[in-house]
């Protein structure tokens, strides 16, 4: 995995990592659709890759509602490019 192409941001209690190398070959963009349907619609596609449509600070303050749907949809309709890390011990 090329770390330079990892797109990462924090949610309120976790961390979302998107491997943009995989996203370039993805046609479904299911993560963005899922975010609109189940979450708060904070992802958009730019140059073929999903990125935040809000600032990282806004996402961390709760803009990302941690619906987990982007990771789910990417497993089944995308290219397994998204990993959400939710440690059991929350450090705020």
């Amino acid at each position, binding site marked *: 995995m090329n770390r330079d192409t990892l797109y990462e941001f924090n949610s309120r209690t976790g961390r979302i990592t998107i491997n943009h190398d995989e996203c370039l070959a993805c046609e479904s963009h299911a993560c963005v659709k899922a975010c609109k349907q189940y979450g708060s619609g904070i992802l958009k596609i730019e140059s073929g890759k999903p990125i935040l449509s809000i600032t990282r600070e806004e996402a961390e303050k709760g803009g990302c509602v*941690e619906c*987990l*749907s982007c990771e789910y949809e990417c497993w*089944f309709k995308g290219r397994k490019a998204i990993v959400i890390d939710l440690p059991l011990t929350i450090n705020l």
Partner: protein
Amino acid sequence: MVKLTEHKGKEILRSMGINTPTGDVARTSLEARRISESLAKPVVVKAHVPFSGRFKAGVVKIAETPDEAEKAASHILSSEIRGFSIHELLVEEKVEIEKEYYAGIIINDSWKVRSPVIIFSVEGGISIEETAKHSPEKVSTLTVDVLKGVNKYDAYNLAIRLGVPSQWIPKIGETLTAMYYAFKRYEARILEINPLALTKDLKIAALDCKMVIDDSAAPRHPELGIQFPRDRETPPTQLEEMAWKIEERDYRGTSYFAQLTQETKEGGYVGFHGIGGGGAMLGMDALHRCGLKIANYADTSGNPTAAKVYRVAKIILAQPGIEGYFLSGAVIASQEQWHHAHGLVKAFRETLAEKPGFPIVALIAGNKEKEAHRIMKEGLKDLPVKLEVYGRDYVYNLGHLALRMRSLVEEYRAMKTNEPGHPI
């Protein structure tokens, strides 16, 4: 609700001007001896545990000398009460009692009352419920108008009604009003002094103290040092502490987790996850009726995030020895169930890939039910678990789900027994 220790409760009473026996907490028999020596009088050595019935259980002893105090402490520290070890003692001066009264304040949350109620009885030292049942003429009560509070004459009248000798009425009245002040200040649900003693040296003293704080109020009272604001009589387990930290640090929705047993070797235990307490009780009853046991009880309600559901599910699954996962989600309208589905799928995928045949029986009813079922089925289709998902038609037919759970647990156990290398 959080029950304070007797020592902490008495500290609060003292700060309100209520007399209590002098004493301190000991963790070893030697510490108990030193406290006894410093008091230089006969002492009472008590197991410092949040259980009633300590005297009957033999974990309250009277010691006339430091030697006896050390011996009593050693005996109590090696005893158990309700299956729990005793790690702390309360060593206090022995008080010579002339008369025992009862004084208590509770919240009566009946829709007809919805107020604190002060209860006073001339029969102390025994259960107030027993006195109220057999000698109701010995109990007087006062429903408090929370806007007006308690005046001293209200408290005096409680004692006057029961024929308390007039010279004691002011002291009892002051004690009851001070108790109400403590009750209100610390947002208690229960404050009970039993017995409230009239001593031979003519003082009024609180010989015991049960103080229960509303768990929602705990964060407003850091001075109480409450680490685990949950209604538990035993110290929290590691999993319970983890679950509480999740709830404490994430206000979105609510989660609750209680580990009901740590011993699951005999089998037949399932992890239990409810969404909404009423439906959850139906599910628990159904499981019990068909012979299954519940290793832990969890609840995720109030529209929690999928992340919160995920964490609670991981904690449920972290309990060793469980042979199935039962979800009783009968909530109809207050949340979108797809969030539960997303959280559960992530937890199951991370935890159950190496547990072929592990049974999951899930009732998911409510808003976005069909979508939630699709997510569960699609998300777990490549996992080697046995998944059955039910919807709103089964909210009042949890008996069927419990029977399915039992069949799947039996199949899972048989499968594990037939695994190569399994000790038969």
